[in-house]
Protein backbone atom coordinates (compact mmCIF):
# COMPACT_ATOMS: atom_id res chain seq x y z
CA UNK A 1 0.00 0.00 0.00
CA UNK A 2 1.44 3.36 -0.98
CA UNK A 3 1.24 5.89 1.79
CA UNK A 4 0.99 9.22 0.02
CA UNK A 5 1.55 12.70 1.41
CA UNK A 6 -0.92 15.16 -0.10
CA UNK A 7 0.81 18.55 -0.29
CA UNK A 8 -2.56 20.31 -0.22
CA UNK A 9 -4.04 18.50 2.79
CA UNK A 10 -0.58 18.23 4.33
CA UNK A 11 -1.32 14.71 5.52
CA UNK A 12 -0.27 11.15 4.72
CA UNK A 13 -3.19 9.12 3.42
CA UNK A 14 -3.58 5.61 1.97
CA UNK A 15 -3.25 4.90 -1.74
CA UNK A 16 -6.94 4.16 -2.18
CA UNK A 17 -7.86 7.80 -1.64
CA UNK A 18 -5.86 8.77 -4.72
CA UNK A 19 -6.05 8.23 -8.44
CA UNK A 20 -3.06 7.98 -10.71
CA UNK A 21 -2.86 10.45 -13.55
CA UNK A 22 0.14 9.28 -15.53
CA UNK A 23 3.52 10.86 -16.19
CA UNK A 24 3.89 14.38 -14.85
CA UNK A 25 4.99 17.47 -16.75
CA UNK A 26 3.40 16.42 -20.05
CA UNK A 27 2.34 19.75 -21.47
CA UNK A 28 -0.53 19.86 -23.92
CA UNK A 29 0.71 21.48 -27.14
CA UNK A 30 -0.30 25.14 -27.16
CA UNK A 31 -1.62 24.98 -30.69
CA UNK A 32 -2.66 21.38 -31.49
CA UNK A 33 -3.62 22.29 -35.05
CA UNK A 34 -0.04 23.34 -35.72
CA UNK A 35 1.37 20.00 -34.52
CA UNK A 36 2.78 17.46 -36.89
CA UNK A 37 1.28 13.96 -36.57
CA UNK A 38 4.44 12.81 -34.85
CA UNK A 39 4.34 15.62 -32.30
CA UNK A 40 0.68 14.99 -31.55
CA UNK A 41 1.25 11.22 -31.21
CA UNK A 42 4.19 11.92 -28.96
CA UNK A 43 1.93 13.98 -26.72
CA UNK A 44 -0.87 11.38 -26.74
CA UNK A 45 0.88 8.03 -26.59
CA UNK A 46 4.59 8.17 -25.87
CA UNK A 47 5.60 8.18 -22.22
CA UNK A 48 8.99 7.76 -20.55
CA UNK A 49 7.94 4.56 -18.76
CA UNK A 50 10.95 5.07 -16.52
CA UNK A 51 12.53 2.26 -14.56
CA UNK A 52 13.72 4.27 -11.55
CA UNK A 53 12.76 7.76 -10.37
CA UNK A 54 9.52 8.75 -12.05
CA UNK A 55 7.64 12.04 -11.83
CA UNK A 56 3.94 11.37 -11.94
CA UNK A 57 0.63 13.11 -11.55
CA UNK A 58 -1.84 12.07 -8.85
CA UNK A 59 -5.17 13.42 -7.70
CA UNK A 60 -6.50 13.22 -4.17
CA UNK A 61 -9.81 11.88 -5.47
CA UNK A 62 -11.44 11.02 -2.14
CA UNK A 63 -9.91 13.97 -0.34
CA UNK A 64 -9.31 17.55 -1.46
CA UNK A 65 -9.67 16.50 -5.14
CA UNK A 66 -6.63 18.53 -6.11
CA UNK A 67 -3.83 17.43 -8.40
CA UNK A 68 -0.21 17.24 -7.37
CA UNK A 69 3.01 15.48 -8.41
CA UNK A 70 4.98 12.65 -6.89
CA UNK A 71 8.55 11.49 -7.47
CA UNK A 72 8.43 7.73 -6.98
CA UNK A 73 10.83 4.87 -7.65
CA UNK A 74 9.07 2.50 -10.05
CA UNK A 75 11.04 -0.51 -8.81
CA UNK A 76 11.04 -0.08 -5.01
CA UNK A 77 7.90 2.12 -5.03
CA UNK A 78 9.60 4.47 -2.56
CA UNK A 79 8.11 7.96 -2.67
CA UNK A 80 10.83 10.59 -2.55
CA UNK A 81 8.77 13.76 -2.59
CA UNK A 82 5.41 15.22 -3.41
CA UNK A 83 5.00 18.73 -4.76
CA UNK A 84 2.28 20.97 -6.04
CA UNK A 85 1.49 21.61 -9.68
CA UNK A 86 3.72 24.39 -10.96
CA UNK A 87 6.55 23.50 -8.61
CA UNK A 88 9.71 21.75 -9.76
CA UNK A 89 10.91 18.43 -8.30
CA UNK A 90 14.05 18.39 -6.17
CA UNK A 91 15.21 15.25 -7.97
CA UNK A 92 15.62 15.30 -11.71
CA UNK A 93 15.97 11.61 -12.52
Amino acid sequence: MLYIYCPHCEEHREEEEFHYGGQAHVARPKDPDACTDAEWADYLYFRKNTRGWHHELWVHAAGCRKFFNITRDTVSYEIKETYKIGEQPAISE
Partner: protein
Amino acid sequence: MQKTERYSGFGLFKHALRHHENWQRVWRNPTPKKQYDVIIVGGGGHGLATAYYLAKKHNITNVAVLEKGYLGGGNTARNTTIVRSNYLWDEAAHLFEHAMTLWEGLSQEINYNVMFSQRGVLNLGHTLQDMRDISRRVNANRLNGIDGEVLDTQQVKALVPIMDCSANTRYPVLGASWQPRAGVARHDAVAWGYARAADALGVDLVQQCEVSDILVEDGAAIGVATKQHGVIKADRIGCVVAGNSGVLAKMAGFELPIESHPLQAFVSEPIKPILDTVVMSNHVHGYISQSDKGDLVVGAGIDSYVGYGQRGSYPVIEHTVQAIIELFPIFSRVRMNRQWGGIVDTCPDACPIISQTPVENLFFNCGGEPAASKPRPVPVMYLPPRWPVGKCTSWRSPSPWTAFTVAP
Protein backbone atom coordinates in the same frame (compact mmCIF):
# COMPACT_ATOMS: atom_id res chain seq x y z
CA MET B 1 25.57 -32.75 -30.46
CA GLN B 2 23.75 -35.47 -28.58
CA LYS B 3 20.42 -36.53 -30.04
CA THR B 4 17.49 -35.44 -27.92
CA GLU B 5 15.71 -38.39 -26.45
CA ARG B 6 12.02 -38.70 -27.28
CA TYR B 7 9.56 -38.64 -24.40
CA SER B 8 6.96 -41.42 -24.39
CA GLY B 9 5.08 -43.74 -22.09
CA PHE B 10 7.46 -46.53 -23.01
CA GLY B 11 10.45 -44.30 -22.23
CA LEU B 12 9.00 -43.52 -18.83
CA PHE B 13 8.65 -47.23 -18.14
CA LYS B 14 12.22 -47.89 -19.29
CA HIS B 15 13.59 -45.17 -17.04
CA ALA B 16 11.51 -46.41 -14.12
CA LEU B 17 13.36 -49.71 -14.33
CA ARG B 18 16.63 -47.77 -13.89
CA HIS B 19 15.28 -45.76 -10.97
CA HIS B 20 15.08 -42.61 -13.12
CA GLU B 21 18.82 -42.10 -12.79
CA ASN B 22 19.72 -41.76 -16.47
CA TRP B 23 17.45 -39.05 -17.81
CA GLN B 24 19.15 -36.90 -20.39
CA ARG B 25 19.62 -33.23 -19.59
CA VAL B 26 16.64 -31.39 -21.03
CA TRP B 27 18.80 -28.80 -22.81
CA ARG B 28 22.49 -27.96 -23.13
CA ASN B 29 24.13 -25.10 -21.29
CA PRO B 30 26.36 -23.67 -24.03
CA THR B 31 28.87 -20.83 -23.92
CA PRO B 32 27.74 -18.31 -26.52
CA LYS B 33 29.61 -17.86 -29.78
CA LYS B 34 30.79 -14.42 -30.89
CA GLN B 35 28.46 -14.28 -33.89
CA TYR B 36 24.97 -15.55 -34.67
CA ASP B 37 22.48 -15.17 -37.50
CA VAL B 38 19.80 -14.22 -35.02
CA ILE B 39 19.89 -13.24 -31.36
CA ILE B 40 16.71 -13.34 -29.37
CA VAL B 41 16.79 -11.33 -26.18
CA GLY B 42 14.54 -12.89 -23.57
CA GLY B 43 14.07 -16.58 -22.76
CA GLY B 44 10.41 -16.61 -21.89
CA GLY B 45 7.54 -18.32 -23.66
CA HIS B 46 7.52 -15.92 -26.59
CA GLY B 47 11.30 -15.80 -27.05
CA LEU B 48 11.71 -19.57 -26.91
CA ALA B 49 8.77 -20.08 -29.28
CA THR B 50 10.33 -17.62 -31.70
CA ALA B 51 13.64 -19.50 -31.54
CA TYR B 52 11.92 -22.84 -32.06
CA TYR B 53 9.92 -21.79 -35.10
CA LEU B 54 12.90 -19.97 -36.60
CA ALA B 55 14.75 -23.26 -36.51
CA LYS B 56 11.83 -25.49 -37.39
CA LYS B 57 9.95 -23.54 -40.04
CA HIS B 58 12.69 -21.37 -41.47
CA ASN B 59 15.79 -23.53 -40.99
CA ILE B 60 17.63 -20.73 -39.21
CA THR B 61 19.44 -22.64 -36.50
CA ASN B 62 22.42 -20.37 -35.85
CA VAL B 63 20.37 -18.69 -33.17
CA ALA B 64 21.03 -17.70 -29.56
CA VAL B 65 18.44 -16.95 -26.91
CA LEU B 66 19.94 -14.67 -24.25
CA GLU B 67 18.19 -14.77 -20.90
CA LYS B 68 19.28 -12.67 -17.93
CA GLY B 69 17.82 -15.07 -15.36
CA TYR B 70 16.66 -18.60 -16.06
CA LEU B 71 14.40 -19.85 -18.83
CA GLY B 72 10.72 -19.10 -18.31
CA GLY B 73 11.46 -17.38 -15.02
CA GLY B 74 10.00 -13.97 -15.77
CA ASN B 75 6.47 -13.10 -16.71
CA THR B 76 5.99 -16.53 -18.29
CA ALA B 77 5.98 -17.89 -14.75
CA ARG B 78 3.68 -15.13 -13.58
CA ASN B 79 0.52 -15.40 -15.64
CA THR B 80 -2.75 -17.22 -15.00
CA THR B 81 -2.33 -19.68 -17.90
CA ILE B 82 -5.55 -18.84 -19.69
CA VAL B 83 -5.70 -19.41 -23.46
CA ARG B 84 -8.57 -18.01 -25.51
CA SER B 85 -9.18 -16.39 -28.87
CA ASN B 86 -12.57 -14.68 -28.50
CA TYR B 87 -11.38 -11.19 -29.35
CA LEU B 88 -13.55 -8.57 -30.99
CA TRP B 89 -11.36 -6.93 -33.60
CA ASP B 90 -10.34 -8.83 -36.71
CA GLU B 91 -6.60 -8.32 -36.23
CA ALA B 92 -6.63 -9.54 -32.64
CA ALA B 93 -9.04 -12.37 -33.40
CA HIS B 94 -6.88 -13.66 -36.28
CA LEU B 95 -3.72 -13.49 -34.20
CA PHE B 96 -5.17 -15.30 -31.20
CA GLU B 97 -7.12 -17.84 -33.25
CA HIS B 98 -3.98 -18.69 -35.17
CA ALA B 99 -2.30 -19.24 -31.82
CA MET B 100 -5.22 -21.39 -30.71
CA THR B 101 -4.79 -23.76 -33.65
CA LEU B 102 -1.09 -24.04 -32.75
CA TRP B 103 -1.93 -24.72 -29.11
CA GLU B 104 -4.19 -27.57 -30.18
CA GLY B 105 -1.32 -29.60 -31.63
CA LEU B 106 1.49 -28.21 -29.52
CA SER B 107 2.15 -31.07 -27.09
CA GLN B 108 2.55 -33.52 -29.99
CA GLU B 109 4.62 -31.15 -32.08
CA ILE B 110 7.22 -30.38 -29.44
CA ASN B 111 6.94 -33.78 -27.71
CA TYR B 112 6.30 -32.15 -24.36
CA ASN B 113 3.08 -32.20 -22.40
CA VAL B 114 2.03 -28.57 -22.04
CA MET B 115 -1.11 -29.74 -20.21
CA PHE B 116 -3.33 -27.84 -22.63
CA SER B 117 -6.86 -28.33 -21.38
CA GLN B 118 -9.72 -27.00 -23.49
CA ARG B 119 -12.14 -26.63 -20.63
CA GLY B 120 -13.87 -23.55 -22.00
CA VAL B 121 -13.87 -19.93 -20.92
CA LEU B 122 -16.87 -17.96 -19.67
CA ASN B 123 -16.83 -14.17 -19.89
CA LEU B 124 -19.65 -13.03 -17.67
CA GLY B 125 -22.01 -10.15 -18.35
CA HIS B 126 -23.52 -8.24 -15.44
CA THR B 127 -25.28 -5.36 -17.15
CA LEU B 128 -27.43 -4.97 -20.23
CA GLN B 129 -24.56 -3.20 -21.95
CA ASP B 130 -22.26 -6.11 -21.04
CA MET B 131 -24.72 -8.43 -22.74
CA ARG B 132 -24.93 -6.27 -25.85
CA ASP B 133 -21.13 -6.19 -26.03
CA ILE B 134 -21.01 -9.95 -25.55
CA SER B 135 -23.48 -10.51 -28.40
CA ARG B 136 -21.45 -8.24 -30.62
CA ARG B 137 -18.20 -9.98 -29.76
CA VAL B 138 -19.59 -13.49 -30.17
CA ASN B 139 -21.08 -12.56 -33.54
CA ALA B 140 -17.78 -11.07 -34.63
CA ASN B 141 -15.99 -14.23 -33.47
CA ARG B 142 -18.34 -16.49 -35.42
CA LEU B 143 -17.89 -14.41 -38.57
CA ASN B 144 -14.16 -14.95 -38.09
CA GLY B 145 -14.65 -18.71 -37.74
CA ILE B 146 -14.02 -18.73 -34.00
CA ASP B 147 -16.32 -20.79 -31.81
CA GLY B 148 -18.50 -18.89 -29.39
CA GLU B 149 -21.96 -18.82 -27.89
CA VAL B 150 -24.02 -16.39 -25.89
CA LEU B 151 -25.40 -18.05 -22.76
CA ASP B 152 -28.20 -16.86 -20.51
CA THR B 153 -28.18 -17.05 -16.71
CA GLN B 154 -29.65 -20.56 -16.59
CA GLN B 155 -27.09 -21.94 -19.01
CA VAL B 156 -24.29 -20.35 -17.01
CA LYS B 157 -25.71 -21.85 -13.84
CA ALA B 158 -25.82 -25.26 -15.48
CA LEU B 159 -22.14 -25.00 -16.43
CA VAL B 160 -20.95 -23.68 -13.07
CA PRO B 161 -23.43 -24.76 -10.40
CA ILE B 162 -21.36 -23.31 -7.55
CA MET B 163 -21.57 -19.77 -8.91
CA ASP B 164 -24.08 -17.42 -7.33
CA CYS B 165 -26.35 -16.66 -10.28
CA SER B 166 -29.24 -15.40 -8.17
CA ALA B 167 -30.81 -11.99 -8.68
CA ASN B 168 -29.88 -10.97 -5.15
CA THR B 169 -26.28 -10.12 -5.80
CA ARG B 170 -24.96 -6.63 -6.30
CA TYR B 171 -24.09 -7.38 -9.93
CA PRO B 172 -26.33 -10.29 -10.98
CA VAL B 173 -25.00 -12.63 -13.67
CA LEU B 174 -27.15 -11.91 -16.73
CA GLY B 175 -25.32 -14.27 -19.04
CA ALA B 176 -21.94 -14.91 -20.58
CA SER B 177 -19.98 -15.55 -23.70
CA TRP B 178 -18.73 -19.12 -23.89
CA GLN B 179 -15.79 -20.33 -25.93
CA PRO B 180 -15.59 -24.12 -25.55
CA ARG B 181 -12.21 -24.46 -27.28
CA ALA B 182 -10.54 -22.03 -24.90
CA GLY B 183 -8.93 -23.21 -21.69
CA VAL B 184 -5.66 -23.29 -19.83
CA ALA B 185 -2.13 -24.56 -20.45
CA ARG B 186 0.69 -25.10 -17.99
CA HIS B 187 2.76 -21.93 -18.37
CA ASP B 188 6.12 -23.41 -17.28
CA ALA B 189 5.70 -26.45 -19.49
CA VAL B 190 5.22 -24.24 -22.54
CA ALA B 191 8.54 -22.51 -21.91
CA TRP B 192 10.35 -25.75 -21.10
CA GLY B 193 8.82 -27.56 -24.05
CA TYR B 194 9.80 -24.89 -26.55
CA ALA B 195 13.24 -24.61 -24.94
CA ARG B 196 13.87 -28.32 -25.27
CA ALA B 197 12.58 -28.45 -28.84
CA ALA B 198 14.64 -25.41 -29.87
CA ASP B 199 17.74 -26.81 -28.19
CA ALA B 200 17.27 -30.09 -30.06
CA LEU B 201 17.37 -28.14 -33.33
CA GLY B 202 20.68 -26.51 -32.37
CA VAL B 203 19.57 -23.21 -30.85
CA ASP B 204 21.92 -22.00 -28.09
CA LEU B 205 19.97 -21.18 -24.93
CA VAL B 206 22.23 -18.93 -22.88
CA GLN B 207 21.03 -18.34 -19.35
CA GLN B 208 22.33 -15.75 -16.91
CA CYS B 209 23.41 -13.52 -19.75
CA GLU B 210 22.07 -10.02 -19.33
CA VAL B 211 22.01 -7.65 -22.27
CA SER B 212 23.35 -4.26 -21.22
CA ASP B 213 23.30 -2.51 -24.59
CA ILE B 214 22.11 -2.92 -28.13
CA LEU B 215 24.81 -1.95 -30.61
CA VAL B 216 23.57 0.19 -33.47
CA GLU B 217 25.69 1.26 -36.44
CA ASP B 218 24.35 3.47 -39.23
CA GLY B 219 20.80 2.94 -38.09
CA ALA B 220 21.09 -0.85 -38.05
CA ALA B 221 21.48 -3.20 -35.10
CA ILE B 222 24.69 -5.22 -35.30
CA GLY B 223 24.81 -6.99 -31.98
CA VAL B 224 24.42 -6.74 -28.24
CA ALA B 225 26.72 -6.08 -25.32
CA THR B 226 26.21 -8.48 -22.44
CA LYS B 227 27.34 -8.29 -18.85
CA GLN B 228 28.64 -11.85 -18.69
CA HIS B 229 29.87 -12.67 -22.20
CA GLY B 230 30.92 -9.37 -23.75
CA VAL B 231 29.83 -8.38 -27.23
CA ILE B 232 27.86 -10.88 -29.27
CA LYS B 233 27.16 -9.94 -32.87
CA ALA B 234 24.18 -10.91 -34.96
CA ASP B 235 22.58 -10.14 -38.31
CA ARG B 236 19.19 -9.70 -36.73
CA ILE B 237 18.02 -9.17 -33.19
CA GLY B 238 14.62 -9.85 -31.71
CA CYS B 239 13.60 -8.42 -28.35
CA VAL B 240 10.96 -10.39 -26.53
CA VAL B 241 11.36 -8.92 -23.08
CA ALA B 242 7.96 -8.46 -21.53
CA GLY B 243 8.19 -5.98 -18.70
CA ASN B 244 11.42 -4.41 -19.90
CA SER B 245 10.60 -3.57 -23.51
CA GLY B 246 10.86 0.14 -22.86
CA VAL B 247 14.27 -0.30 -21.22
CA LEU B 248 15.64 -2.19 -24.22
CA ALA B 249 14.07 0.21 -26.69
CA LYS B 250 15.94 3.02 -24.95
CA MET B 251 19.20 1.10 -25.40
CA ALA B 252 18.52 1.05 -29.13
CA GLY B 253 17.64 4.73 -29.10
CA PHE B 254 13.90 4.89 -29.66
CA GLU B 255 10.75 4.96 -27.56
CA LEU B 256 7.79 2.64 -27.51
CA PRO B 257 4.17 3.66 -27.03
CA ILE B 258 3.89 1.41 -23.99
CA GLU B 259 3.83 1.67 -20.22
CA SER B 260 4.67 -1.08 -17.74
CA HIS B 261 2.25 -1.96 -14.97
CA PRO B 262 2.16 -4.73 -12.36
CA LEU B 263 -0.56 -7.31 -12.91
CA GLN B 264 -1.03 -9.64 -10.00
CA ALA B 265 -2.39 -13.09 -9.46
CA PHE B 266 -2.64 -15.49 -6.58
CA VAL B 267 -3.25 -19.15 -5.92
CA SER B 268 -5.03 -20.83 -3.04
CA GLU B 269 -4.18 -23.97 -1.15
CA PRO B 270 -5.01 -27.08 -3.22
CA ILE B 271 -8.61 -28.25 -2.85
CA LYS B 272 -10.60 -31.07 -4.41
CA PRO B 273 -11.87 -30.56 -7.99
CA ILE B 274 -14.71 -28.08 -7.91
CA LEU B 275 -14.35 -25.75 -10.89
CA ASP B 276 -13.89 -27.39 -14.29
CA THR B 277 -13.86 -24.30 -16.49
CA VAL B 278 -12.49 -20.77 -16.53
CA VAL B 279 -14.68 -17.93 -15.29
CA MET B 280 -13.80 -14.34 -16.13
CA SER B 281 -15.69 -11.20 -15.32
CA ASN B 282 -14.60 -7.80 -16.55
CA HIS B 283 -17.36 -6.05 -14.71
CA VAL B 284 -16.65 -7.14 -11.15
CA HIS B 285 -13.08 -7.74 -12.38
CA GLY B 286 -11.66 -11.04 -11.41
CA TYR B 287 -11.00 -14.32 -13.09
CA ILE B 288 -10.58 -17.79 -11.72
CA SER B 289 -9.79 -21.34 -12.71
CA GLN B 290 -8.61 -24.45 -10.89
CA SER B 291 -5.26 -26.01 -11.71
CA ASP B 292 -4.70 -29.74 -12.08
CA LYS B 293 -2.98 -29.65 -8.70
CA GLY B 294 -6.20 -28.33 -7.19
CA ASP B 295 -5.34 -24.76 -6.32
CA LEU B 296 -7.60 -21.96 -7.40
CA VAL B 297 -5.77 -19.58 -9.71
CA VAL B 298 -7.13 -16.08 -9.36
CA GLY B 299 -6.25 -13.13 -11.56
CA ALA B 300 -6.67 -9.47 -10.92
CA GLY B 301 -6.59 -6.09 -12.56
CA ILE B 302 -3.43 -4.13 -13.19
CA ASP B 303 -2.15 -1.44 -10.87
CA SER B 304 -2.96 1.95 -12.32
CA TYR B 305 0.56 3.29 -11.88
CA VAL B 306 3.78 2.45 -13.69
CA GLY B 307 5.72 -0.19 -11.80
CA TYR B 308 8.52 -2.68 -12.34
CA GLY B 309 8.42 -4.11 -8.83
CA GLN B 310 6.87 -7.51 -9.69
CA ARG B 311 4.39 -7.18 -6.88
CA GLY B 312 0.93 -5.74 -6.87
CA SER B 313 -0.81 -3.32 -4.57
CA TYR B 314 -3.07 -4.33 -1.71
CA PRO B 315 -6.23 -2.52 -2.86
CA VAL B 316 -6.21 -4.63 -6.05
CA ILE B 317 -6.07 -7.82 -3.99
CA GLU B 318 -9.05 -6.65 -1.98
CA HIS B 319 -11.09 -5.76 -5.07
CA THR B 320 -10.30 -9.04 -6.74
CA VAL B 321 -11.16 -11.12 -3.72
CA GLN B 322 -14.42 -9.20 -3.36
CA ALA B 323 -15.29 -10.05 -6.95
CA ILE B 324 -14.47 -13.72 -6.53
CA ILE B 325 -16.39 -14.05 -3.26
CA GLU B 326 -19.33 -12.23 -4.77
CA LEU B 327 -19.45 -14.81 -7.57
CA PHE B 328 -18.41 -17.81 -5.47
CA PRO B 329 -19.53 -17.42 -1.84
CA ILE B 330 -18.43 -21.05 -1.38
CA PHE B 331 -14.79 -19.94 -1.68
CA SER B 332 -15.00 -17.43 1.15
CA ARG B 333 -12.97 -19.61 3.52
CA VAL B 334 -10.36 -20.82 1.05
CA ARG B 335 -6.92 -19.65 2.07
CA MET B 336 -4.55 -18.09 -0.40
CA ASN B 337 -1.08 -19.56 -0.59
CA ARG B 338 0.93 -17.30 -2.81
CA GLN B 339 0.59 -13.92 -4.47
CA TRP B 340 2.79 -12.32 -7.09
CA GLY B 341 2.91 -9.65 -9.75
CA GLY B 342 4.03 -9.84 -13.34
CA ILE B 343 4.90 -6.76 -15.34
CA VAL B 344 2.69 -6.08 -18.32
CA ASP B 345 3.86 -3.76 -21.07
CA THR B 346 0.64 -2.12 -22.07
CA CYS B 347 -0.03 -0.47 -25.40
CA PRO B 348 -2.65 2.29 -25.61
CA ASP B 349 -4.95 -0.14 -27.44
CA ALA B 350 -3.88 -3.18 -25.36
CA CYS B 351 -2.89 -5.06 -28.51
CA PRO B 352 0.62 -6.43 -28.96
CA ILE B 353 3.31 -4.85 -31.08
CA ILE B 354 4.95 -7.56 -33.17
CA SER B 355 6.99 -5.59 -35.59
CA GLN B 356 10.23 -4.29 -36.93
CA THR B 357 11.38 -1.06 -35.37
CA PRO B 358 12.90 2.24 -36.49
CA VAL B 359 16.26 0.47 -36.13
CA GLU B 360 17.11 -1.80 -39.05
CA ASN B 361 17.37 -5.53 -38.25
CA LEU B 362 15.86 -5.03 -34.82
CA PHE B 363 12.46 -6.50 -34.03
CA PHE B 364 10.18 -6.25 -31.05
CA ASN B 365 7.40 -8.41 -29.71
CA CYS B 366 5.84 -6.55 -26.81
CA GLY B 367 2.96 -4.54 -25.53
CA GLY B 368 0.37 -7.29 -25.55
CA GLU B 369 1.24 -8.62 -22.16
CA PRO B 370 -2.18 -8.53 -20.52
CA ALA B 371 -3.05 -11.17 -23.06
CA ALA B 372 0.38 -12.57 -23.72
CA SER B 373 -0.07 -16.12 -22.53
CA LYS B 374 -2.48 -16.71 -25.37
CA PRO B 375 -0.47 -15.97 -28.48
CA ARG B 376 2.78 -17.48 -27.25
CA PRO B 377 3.15 -19.78 -30.23
CA VAL B 378 2.53 -16.97 -32.64
CA PRO B 379 5.41 -14.52 -32.78
CA VAL B 380 7.06 -16.88 -35.02
CA MET B 381 4.50 -16.91 -37.64
CA TYR B 382 4.55 -13.19 -37.93
CA LEU B 383 8.13 -12.27 -37.27
CA PRO B 384 10.43 -14.85 -38.78
CA PRO B 385 9.06 -15.20 -42.28
CA ARG B 386 10.34 -11.72 -42.87
CA TRP B 387 13.47 -11.98 -40.75
CA PRO B 388 15.67 -13.54 -43.40
CA VAL B 389 15.19 -10.48 -45.60
CA GLY B 390 15.29 -8.10 -42.66
CA LYS B 391 11.78 -6.88 -43.23
CA CYS B 392 8.75 -7.46 -41.12
CA THR B 393 5.55 -5.69 -41.76
CA SER B 394 3.38 -5.78 -38.73
CA TRP B 395 0.45 -8.13 -38.40
CA ARG B 396 -1.45 -5.06 -37.32
CA SER B 397 -2.83 -2.78 -39.93
CA PRO B 398 -1.91 -0.05 -39.70
CA SER B 399 1.40 -1.03 -38.12
CA PRO B 400 2.04 0.27 -34.60
CA TRP B 401 4.57 2.74 -35.91
CA THR B 402 1.95 4.43 -37.98
CA ALA B 403 -0.99 3.65 -35.69
CA PHE B 404 0.60 5.70 -32.97
CA THR B 405 2.33 8.34 -35.01
CA VAL B 406 -0.29 9.23 -37.61
CA ALA B 407 -3.38 10.99 -36.40
CA PRO B 408 -6.61 9.23 -37.27
